[in-house]
């Protein structure tokens, strides 16, 4: 019960900000409101990650996996949008849980942008990848059982990632929602969306056993995640 209070409080703050934002301060500044909502909705996830008791081995293993997923964005730098990052985050979340999945998504976005360039998109990448990881952690059991479901999840998260970034671009550019521009952007970015989805499926297929197996083995070998 104690843990749930700040989450409700934050949701309340987010809702209050949205309402006051819409009706008073920024009448049609949806981009700003969306940005605030994205940042605020990450807060409870960050807090819940901070609150969980830390097993040092788990922390270090998580850090190593994040480093690998940042590097995987580099390895394929020559092929635009065809990246194994989302697949890595989903796999991390499946084997280390939803909190770790969220942290992996947010951290990968933040750190890789130190090399690729920070921008307003950093917050949204942190949000999207963090949520993809968090949800994958919640669905971990089912995703492990059925490969088909895992691949569908990977494809959908590619689409989600692309649609969300397009949405914010339109909101920011117009200061409001312009359906015509959104449709134009989504159709012109359809190739990118498709690349995201396909690359997620391909990399999930390839890496599921390589990375997942490695995590499983290390967990078993060193007793990670088992309270000592």
């Amino acid at each position: 019960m104690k843990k749930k209070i700040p989450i409700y409080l934050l949701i309340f703050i987010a809702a209050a900000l949205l309402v006051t934002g819409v009706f008073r301060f920024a009448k049609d500044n949806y981009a700003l409101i969306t940005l605030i909502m994205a940042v605020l909705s990450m807060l409870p996830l960050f807090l819940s990650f901070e609150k969980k008791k830390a097993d040092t081995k788990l922390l270090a293993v998580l850090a190593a996996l994040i480093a690998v997923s940042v590097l995987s964005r580099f390895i394929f730098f020559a092929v635009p949008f065809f990246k194994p990052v989302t697949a890595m985050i989903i796999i991390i979340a499946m084997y280390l849980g939803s909190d770790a999945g969220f942290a992996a998504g947010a951290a990968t976005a933040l750190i890789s942008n130190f090399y690729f360039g920070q921008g307003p998109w950093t917050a949204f990448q942190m949000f999207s990848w963090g949520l993809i990881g968090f949800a994958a952690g919640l669905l971990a059991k089912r995703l492990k059982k059925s490969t088909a479901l895992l691949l569908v999840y990977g494809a959908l998260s590619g689409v989600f990632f692309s649609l969300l970034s397009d949405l914010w671009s339109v909101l920011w550019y117009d200061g409001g929602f312009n359906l015509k521009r959104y449709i134009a952007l989504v159709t012109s970015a359809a190739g990118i969306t498709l690349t995201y989805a396909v690359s997620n499926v391909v990399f999930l297929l390839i890496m599921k056993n390589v990375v997942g197996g490695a995590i499983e083995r290390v967990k078993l070998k060193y007793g990670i995640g088992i309270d000592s």
Partner: protein
Amino acid sequence: MSFFDSLHPAVSLIFFLGVIFCAAFFINPVITLSALLGGLIFLCILKGRRAFFKDFVFILILILFSAALNPLFSAEGSTVILILFGRPYTLESLLYGIQAGAMIGAVLCWFKCLSECFGSEKYLYLFSKALPKFSLILTIVFRYIPLIKEHIGKLRKAQKALGVKDNSLKNKLTLSMRIFGSAVVYSLESAVETGNSMKARGFGAANRTSYSLFRFSLRDAVFSGVFFGLAIFSAMGFAFKGIEFEYYPNLGGISADTLSVFSYLSFFVLCLMPAICEIKENLKWRYLRLRV
């Protein structure tokens, strides 16, 4: 080392976020132009003329594209210039395109300046108190990235020495996957060692302390004093006189009473503050060298 690099991280981050916030969310040509100009000059000082030129051309192209394309998507506005594909192409949309392009350009420019003089160690310093576990992980990741990179290089050399072929695409992919898998296993195993060592040294027994070079000095106090003064002046004008500039259906005017002019001027000076500080510092350096 630039002047901004040596400022306290909290001061410079608040400054950057403040300017980027105004540049990104206030649709007003005066604000956007001030931010764009200040950002461009600052970036030029930070990166040098040659590297800056590339960014400048990119931003210019962005603005031109935005101006040319916007009227195709938005037919709002009352002054029709020409009819294109049976749809009106209005002056107001064209101007809004320039405004939006300049806005995006200004934000990109300030983010580039931010990355030039705000390294990862400053983020870690600022967030290690609020999010200790997350920033600890970030710290470890920053150490692991070069380590794993180096290890991947070694693996690649070893495979080459073994005579593994990478001539066809299929061979290349199998080789990369083998190297990747091996790198994952290696980094996980070495991570466990790090974890054990952390535990042995008493991780979690007390709050972690961190070494940092940052002190809040006199120049930080002076800088933040001037910054907050200017920010309050501009915020006053924005709050009382309104900041929204109408583009549709007709262009609105910019209020020119004393308070508005004063607040626009304060914002303009605020955007130029980094450039002024850097130039002042350069001149001082040159003068001191002349005396030697």
